[in-house]
């Protein structure tokens, strides 16, 4: 495959609030190839959802470009734009709110099939049955006449995925798609999304606050860690979790409670300088992480904004110290 399929080219998004202007996303670039999986992780307010919405073309960047197959999406019109709309689909977080409660599953799936001229009448029924099979709702005929309230959270989320698939998308953006379903069935939903990437060459973007979920889902892909509107680290998933390069990623991984008593009770902590996340209304100068960072150097980190640079091993990190030392923060902090 030549060139990326979809690309954010240094996009920023600002919001005007009564209290002032906030920059929810600041100069983010991401480039995704066909059938790639990528996870965007970060805490609330880091800009991961805003980034996902810009990637899906639902939110116009305040600056920067969204490119699909090399062309600027926000310059597209008419048929060209409709083609992009079909190609990129979103799966929402809350399967209780994202399905129309007054429509059966068939009534939810048929309109997009008809609208985008995929299938009508009897062919539509066959198409719906095959979609439901693809998302693991069996026997599919049983589900067609059901209403959302008759389904469990996990089943609803499968219907949401089936709905996204009605238009044969090439990119799926799933925003916290498993955080509201029961722990016991999260893995099967992640597997379903993962199969779309491997078997049907769909590029999948999973936005999550849960690094364990990101690790499992993105095990063959990459992870972007965001903090206060910026991507602070971008790396393949295994090197990120086993040897994080940015001090923030390092602190995050060290702080995560894990479902293993020995591991979780003996984890080495990273002592952060402050507990509070700065307000987006009043961001610190220089590196936004410097007030909490144990590696912060006066005169450098509090003055100069670090840009994403490359470390050996194909990872990028936005940290002056890690880049200068050519070493991941995890080593500099003695966590590894």
């Amino acid at each position, binding site marked *: 495959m030549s060139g990326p399929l979809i690309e954010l080219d240094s996009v920023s998004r600002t919001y005007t609030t009564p209290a002032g202007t906030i920059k929810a996303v600041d100069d983010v670039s991401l480039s995704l190839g066909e059938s790639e999986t990528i996870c965007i992780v970060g805490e609330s307010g880091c800009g991961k959802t805003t980034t996902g919405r810009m990637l899906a073309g639902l939110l116009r960047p305040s600056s920067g470009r969204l490119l699909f197959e090399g062309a600027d999406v926000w310059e597209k019109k008419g048929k060209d734009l409709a083609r992009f709309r079909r190609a990129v689909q979103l799966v929402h977080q809350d399967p209780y709110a994202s399905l129309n409660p007054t429509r059966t599953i068939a009534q939810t799936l048929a309109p997009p099939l008809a609208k985008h001229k995929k299938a009508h009448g009897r062919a539509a029924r066959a198409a719906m049955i095959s979609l439901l099979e693809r998302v693991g709702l069996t026997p599919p005929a049983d589900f067609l006449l059901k209403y959302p309230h008759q389904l469990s959270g996990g089943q609803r989320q499968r219907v949401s995925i089936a709905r996204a698939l009605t238009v044969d998308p090439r990119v799926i953006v799933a925003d916290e798609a498993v955080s509201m379903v029961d722990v016991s069935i999260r893995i099967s939903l992640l597997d379903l999304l993962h199969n779309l990437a491997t078997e049907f060459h769909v590029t999948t973007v999973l936005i999550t606050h849960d690094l364990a979920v990101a690790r499992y889902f993105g095990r063959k892909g990459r992870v972007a860690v965001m903090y206060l509107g910026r991507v602070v680290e971008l790396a393949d998933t295994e090197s990120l979790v086993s040897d994080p390069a940015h001090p923030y990623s390092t602190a995050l991984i060290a702080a*995560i409670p894990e479902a293993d008593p020995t591991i979780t009770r003996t984890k080495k902590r990273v002592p952060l300088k402050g507990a509070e996340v700065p307000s987006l209304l009043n961001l610190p100068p220089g590196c936004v992480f410097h007030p909490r960072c144990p590696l912060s150097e006066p005169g450098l980190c509090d003055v100069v904004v670090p840009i994403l640079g490359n470390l050996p091993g194909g990872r990028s990190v936005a940290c002056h110290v890690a880049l200068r030392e050519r070493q991941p923060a995890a080593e500099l902090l003695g966590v590894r």
Partner: protein
Amino acid sequence: MPVLSVRDLSIDYRTRRGPVHAVRDVTFDLEQGETLAVIGESGSGKTTLAVGLIRLSPRSARVTKGEIRYDDGKRAFDVLSLDPERLRRFRWADCAMVFQAALSAFNPVITIWEQFLDTGRAHGMGDKHKVHDRTRELLDLVHLDPTRVLRAYPHELSGGMRQRVLIAMALLLDPRIIILDEPTTALDILTQRAIIDLLRELRGKLGFATIFISHDLSIAAELADRMLTMYAGRIVERATVDDLFYRPRHPYSVGLMRAVPRVSGALGSVASIPGSPPDLIRLPRGCSYYPRCPFHVDECLQQDPPLLKVDTPEHEAACIRWEAVAAALGSDAEAPVAEKLA
């Protein structure tokens, strides 16, 4: 001497379709100062059990049988036979509950100080200055700045600060038991870590016993001494935290352990539990986990198995196939389930 002994507790919800057997024959002891974690999927009955312990259940719920015995060494009684006034006092003074740190856990139109004062007054702390001193002491204990927080309204605090305030408020009357319902859900990772560390610190200083209900196994791994697994309203396994994580004997516990990926260590063979929990109105014959269980045999259909002693005297599992489960997991004692099954 357990501070709380629950015996054969059963709670039904009345519905139009018939009674929902949400909690069935639950028996356990909570020892002084220990932390007990109750895990299970949504609908397993863990929240019904937690609110049932302090009789805060909704009106449609009915305790059909059982006993909840409280004994702090000075006073002993059955919570189920308390009259409304004594129940009201029991609820915060002996056994407090910390809910998720949502805004709805507070009265939105009064300050934090007034919330503390209300709570104190409702429990006979007539001296305003005494409540004030105690409140400041508690806010210090949960690492908040009392001067700033007392004047604030709930919406002015961050999620992490609200959770700290709720914990401080639960401690106002120095209860012997604290029930925590999903104490760190909806909090960010670094905040979650701070709350976990805080709970551990307070438990060490104040010595209260804790029951916490969470779908998040990692919180249990952090804090629990012992654990209960609930399925379809019953306790299906009771074990120490290490036994449950590394040597589970009920196939449902195995399934839960295997369903949660980790960030450190090997990924192992992570997998979801197939199927969904049974209808609690029409429970299936025999073991209620049978339809989802990879270890099932025909004999499992004959009766809902009682808790059986496995491995050690402190470890029980309601599964006649527990030896087959043990064999499948092998003898590598300290490895997590997902790795053993890889």
